[in-house]
């Protein structure tokens, strides 16, 4: 019996987006209810998928396959591995919170919700599809709506540059939402182009007339080819994961995007990049990965520290959080580069932990921004007096971000550093741990500047506690931060067999290659 659970999870938001097209713009409540229903269905489906996945058996489960272009070997294949469940949960929790956080959006709401839902369908698709070409299609579906979402619903020029560099900002219109949307899209599309080249090369060289990831993984690619293709996938997907120096779309993009879009983009979309590097790059090209990981890991360590230092210097609240994403995605890439079970578990756990934490951040920042009408941290102060709940949830996000035990952030960072330490990569782990310390400096500085101190000055007359649906996002996300931190096995017991499977493949293929190459050398005349 084939299960259709995964189709349901992937399809529900897309279907809802279709339904939205038939609603009239005035039916504001109906638009929201349809979106919320789709998010709920996907959330429940994800929970069922997580709980019904048989960990003892591990491997791919709940497989369903529909041919698209059989002649070329393109199939719409869904299957769940150990990683799938936690990542589906991550996506579902964030879209659920995101829909509720967008409840008060007041501009072309029909289109807004439709785009949001289409985007999420794409994300789900990437996490469960087993066909490389379909993977790429879903990836693009997830990335492209961002252009419209930021360009139409975003905000411009909140905090301007001062002093001599003001002209440079004006010349390039930095801080403008059109600029941010365009930069984000173009940079990610260049990345996609690199990915597409690599995909076709993999397909052609495998010679099996199939885009199936399993088939491609068991194909033999020459070491030279792997060394050439791996950086294409690393930087192609890595651009979306904020890999230095191709991360600069992210601060501008996240700062200009509306709240729910920032939540989704930093919370889920950046994970697609890291997921792509691991699931496609490292699993399909084990030799290439081995050759390149010293670079991948070193760049990831740079990401962690560099992102943290850049965040410390920001004067715009949204930029602080955006740079913190650059820093924390470095932890994911660092874990991936260790090629150890601890590191990979930590990387996937960090995708979830950082996703939820940063979504919580952006939700809280959105609430502050809506009420204060500014994002300039220097102007704020004493907000905790009038919005204690928001302050509390913001602090919770801070604590997770600096890796406090008892929050999800600790588990992932600890596993990643453990992996790096065990593999002897001390020079990656030390900047990583230092990055967590620098994080403690900048997040608590921001908290103090925004929420602590003498009560808010007179100009902030709209300040007030969150109301009604605005509570949904912090409560759901905050509960997840604490739950996954206190009892990480909810996710880790799934992630672990997933990492074991993918890593085993990687290590075995590598062993075969070693044997083959020594034989080849032996037979040399």
């Amino acid at each position, binding site marked *: 019996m084939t299960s259709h659970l995964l189709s349901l999870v992937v399809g529900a938001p897309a279907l809802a987006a279709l339904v939205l097209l038939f609603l009239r713009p005035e039916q504001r409540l109906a638009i929201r209810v349809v979106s919320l229903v789709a998010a709920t269905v996907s959330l429940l489906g994800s929970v069922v998928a997580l709980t019904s996945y048989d960990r003892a058996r591990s491997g791919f489960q709940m497989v369903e396959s529909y041919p698209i272009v059989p002649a070329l070997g393109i199939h719409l294949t869904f299957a769940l591995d150990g990683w799938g469940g936690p990542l589906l949960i991550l996506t579902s929790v964030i879209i659920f919170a995101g829909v509720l956080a967008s409840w008060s959006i007041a501009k072309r709401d029909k289109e807004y919700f439709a785009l949001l839902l289409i985007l999420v369908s794409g994300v789900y698709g990437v996490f469960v599809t087993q066909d490389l070409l379909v993977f790429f299609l879903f990836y693009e579906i997830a990335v492209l709506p961002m252009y419209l979402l930021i360009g139409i619903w975003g905000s411009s020029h909140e905090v301007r540059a001062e002093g001599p560099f003001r002209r440079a900002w004006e010349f390039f219109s930095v801080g403008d939402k059109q600029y941010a949307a365009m930069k984000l899209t173009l940079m990610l599309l260049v990345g996609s182009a690199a990915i597409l080249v690599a995909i076709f090369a993999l397909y052609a060289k495998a010679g099996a007339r199939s885009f199936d990831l399993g088939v491609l993984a068991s194909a033999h690619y020459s070491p030279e080819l792997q060394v050439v293709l791996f950086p294409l996938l690393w930087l192609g997907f890595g651009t979306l994961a904020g890999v230095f120096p191709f991360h600069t779309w992210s601060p501008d993009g996240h700062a200009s995007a509306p709240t729910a879009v920032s939540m989704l983009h930093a919370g889920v979309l950046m994970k697609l990049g890291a997921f792509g590097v691991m699931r496609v790059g490292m699993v399909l090209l084990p030799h290439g990965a081995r050759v390149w990981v010293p670079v991948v890991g070193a760049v990831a360590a740079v990401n962690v520290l560099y992102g943290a*230092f850049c965040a410390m210097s920001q004067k715009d609240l949204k930029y602080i959080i955006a740079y913190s994403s650059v820093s924390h995605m470095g932890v994911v890439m660092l874990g991936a580069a260790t090629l150890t079970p*601890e590191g990979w578990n930590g990387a996937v756990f960090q995708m979830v932990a950082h996703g939820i934490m940063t979504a919580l951040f952006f939700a809280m920042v959105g609430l502050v921004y809506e009420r204060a009408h500014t994002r300039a941290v220097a102007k704020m102060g004493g907000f905790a007096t009038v919005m204690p709940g928001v302050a509390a949830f913001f602090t919770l996000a801070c604590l997770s971000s600096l890796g406090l035990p008892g929050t999800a952030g600790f588990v992932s960072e600890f596993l990643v550093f453990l992996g790096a330490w065990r593999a002897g990569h001390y020079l990656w782990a030390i900047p990583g741990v230092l990055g967590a310390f620098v994080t403690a400096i900048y997040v608590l500085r921001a908290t103090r500047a925004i929420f602590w101190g003498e009560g808010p000055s007179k100009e902030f007359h709209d300040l007030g506690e969150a109301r009604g649906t605005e509570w949904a996002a912090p409560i759901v996300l905050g509960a997840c931060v604490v739950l996954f931190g206190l009892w990480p096995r909810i996710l880790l017991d799934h992630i672990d067999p997933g990492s074991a499977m993918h890593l085993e493949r990687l290590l075995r293929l590598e062993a075969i290659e070693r044997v083959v190459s020594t034989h080849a050398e032996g037979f040399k005349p």
Partner: protein
Amino acid sequence: MMRPILLALTALLAPALVALSLAVAPSVRRRGAPAAALTILASLASFGAAVALLFEHSARLTVPWLRTGARVIAEVGVNVDGVSTSMLVVVTFVALCVQVFSLGYMHDESPPAFGRYFAYHALFLFSMNLLVLAPNLLQLFAGWELVGVTSYLLIGFYYKKPSAAHAAVKAFWVTKFADMGFLFGLLTLFVATGSFSFNVALTPPVAVAVTLLFFLAVVGKSAQFPLHVWLPDAMEGPTPVSALLHAATMVAAGVFLVVRADPLFAQAESTRTVMLVVGVGTALFAALLALVQTDIKKVLAYSTCSQLGYMIAALGAGSMLGGFFHLTTHAFFKALLFLAAGSIIHAVGSNELSKMGGLARRMPVTFAAFTIGALSLAAVPGFSGFFSKDLVLEAVAGKLGSIPLALLVATAFLTAFYMGRVLVVAFLGAPSSDEAAHAHEAGWSMKLPLLALAALSLVAGFFAAPFAKLHGQAYHFHFGGVAAVGTAAGLLGLVLAYTLSSARIARATRAVSELARGSAVDRFYEYSFRRVTLVLSDSLAWVDRYVVDGMINLLGYRTIDAGRGMRPLQTGMAPDYVLAVVVGAASLAAWTVLR
């Protein structure tokens, strides 16, 4: 077998449940009184369970917490043995006293603030018990970090005050910096042994590396030189908080870690030497600074640093018993001193010693309590501090050419002197302010904890033998040469404090006050933060915006430029295009023919 586990779980989970329910039920918390009642009930349950545990056997319960590569790498649970039980009793007892005291002390706060205060206390007690009952170093680390956060929240309790906000983040940053040592220590330990156990055999270099890394964290948490700077500032928190976190329990967590991981430290003689030096140095240095403080809480704060130095020195000399017993008696008498100081501050409305004076007659209970605490701290024979300090002095005797012993005896003199000075200035003579003249004792909720702690400060010393037995060691008291010297130093200090006029004291300590005013260590950190960290972050952010991102913008701009440059080719006139087609076709044909 089951009973000790159930008791330990009660001690751990009662405050956890209260903290959780106060977090998820803001309506209860914001009413204030119910939150206080729930928290105190939980502490009572924890304390009851802890006392009951004294009469139970060792036991241990763990469940897998992290699994990787199908292998359990970390567990959580409870571990009941002599060390954890005695610490648990101390922590829960002091916590209970402090919470009852807070009922009176924090009475004037608004109900939401009052509720928030007690919610933090419940969270603190859970975190501390998590640390104390930890079956491995990873859980200990989790508790360690969580008490750090509750310390941050409680120091910043008056978050509207900029100085409190500053002190809170400073305390967190300094300890967090030191905690990197703990984390690296854990990683190294796990890579070497595959576990986070505090009782494994290590090779000598690994043992030294791991214990030195742990000791860095201890220096931060237990406010040892040069990371002591956060503790005096932490006095910005409410006074009962200073008593519980920043004197009796949380700062002692560093000492507790060394006691807990004694088997690891026993394998690293060089680390112990470092500890001895740092401990003795801090004891003397902080005692000197305590001499010249004018704020009663600051005197006590520096005194805490100094006494923690004693404990670290004892542990460095290899005497686990000395360090741990001094921790225990210190928890009682220092909490007593802080609460008594709180009682004074509550009555006088100021921390400044110069605003006090003549309080002995107006606040007899507080006076008696403070005197007992002060005499205990000054190690007057018969008081608890005497027995524990004697153990410390005995332990360091003969180490490193007896220099540590001499310095610690000198410190004992200074300790008695500065405590004697506080007693004289605050309680004797004439009132120095209107508030002091009209001061009066507070209600029973504040008096009762004082009496309980005073009783323990008086008698705890006589329990040294059972305490030692709990840790499988023997203790016999004998009044030897070391004890005589220590006692003489203490009594001399007290007598001098009573007889010398304050003008003379000021003249004698002028050099120290210059040192304190400069507070060079503090300024060094401030300077390196502003001039190094902030400048580095600003320059990196600049590089990111104008160099890294500038390249991307330049690329984009050049692309547009190139397009603009090629635009003239598209003239929009048909003849031009026809010409291009003809020329193109002709060249193609030519190429085919001539190839």
